[in-house]
């Protein structure tokens, strides 16, 4: 009962509301900075896609690691501490869905940018291919959670999550290892990389804002999964009570 109130209380927590308010302010400032940043010399206004594409790409590399860590903890705790394992599993589900969401945005904005800049929607470039693979891996994780028969779903998906995480460093390093269609790294790409300092505010504000938004969604999705776990638990308990009641009658 106490734990139930605690889970339900997440949505009503004052810090949650404050965090949401701060996030919306950051998103609004980020949008304003993206719109008012100086126009890039070569690509013109199209370059403004970068202010949304870059933060989503960066955060889309973090969520799979959270998913992998939570999956490892789930496998570690599932025998000794079922309650902690359930929490880790809920966190794994939440971070996997956030991965799909952020990679989807990264792919879509990248394709729109590519269509306008290169004249093509898609090419089998190293970065694009490994990023698509990342999306497919986490879509399959989410589908597995949704459609697999109950019982071993959490274990199987935890194992999938650990293997799926291998794609992240490959995807991240792809534009350093292979020089193909995708532009070279903007930050930390060596000599000649980087952007004009007048564009920094638009980049950092949007990076912070979409990170805060991601954290907000992650918290909300985690709370929802915990709520579902409790509902499933209560339903199982009710069913067991229904089955065991007539048996007790017989034994009397």
């Amino acid at each position, binding site marked *: 009962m106490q734990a139930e109130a605690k889970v339900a209380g997440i949505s009503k927590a004052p810090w949650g509301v404050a965090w949401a308010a701060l996030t919306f302010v950051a998103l609004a400032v980020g949008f304003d900075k993206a719109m008012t940043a100086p126009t890039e010399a070569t690509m013109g206004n199209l370059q403004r*896609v970068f202010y949304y594409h870059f933060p989503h790409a960066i955060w889309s590399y973090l969520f799979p690691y959270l998913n992998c860590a939570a999956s490892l903890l789930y496998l570690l705790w599932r025998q000794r501490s079922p309650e902690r394992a359930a929490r880790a599993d809920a966190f794994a589900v939440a971070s996997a869905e956030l991965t799909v969401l952020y990679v989807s945005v990264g792919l879509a904005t990248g394709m729109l*940018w590519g269509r306008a800049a290169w004249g093509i929607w898609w090419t089998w470039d190293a970065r694009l291919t490994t990023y698509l693979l990342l999306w497919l891996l986490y879509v399959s994780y989410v589908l597995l959670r949704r459609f697999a028969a109950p019982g071993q779903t959490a274990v199987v998906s935890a194992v999938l999550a650990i293997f799926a995480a291998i794609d992240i460093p490959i995807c991240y390093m792809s534009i350093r290892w292979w020089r193909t269609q995708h532009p070279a790294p903007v930050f930390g790409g060596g000599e000649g990389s980087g952007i004009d300092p007048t564009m920094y505010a638009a980049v950092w504000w949007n990076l912070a804002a979409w990170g805060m938004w991601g954290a907000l969604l992650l918290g909300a999705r985690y709370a929802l999964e915990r709520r579902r776990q409790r509902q499933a638990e209560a339903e199982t308990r009710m069913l067991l009570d229904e089955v065991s009641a007539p048996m007790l009658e017989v034994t009397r």
Partner: protein
Amino acid sequence: MIPFHTLSQRHLVFAYCVVWLLQFGYAAWLVAAWRRTRG
């Protein structure tokens, strides 16, 4: 005042729309799923 002239590139407008649609669509689904689930 938002300088709307910077939205002259239609692919930029599409990109912004895709971002907001996906992000707020997911947030709306979360709210709906929360209401459907008994705590």
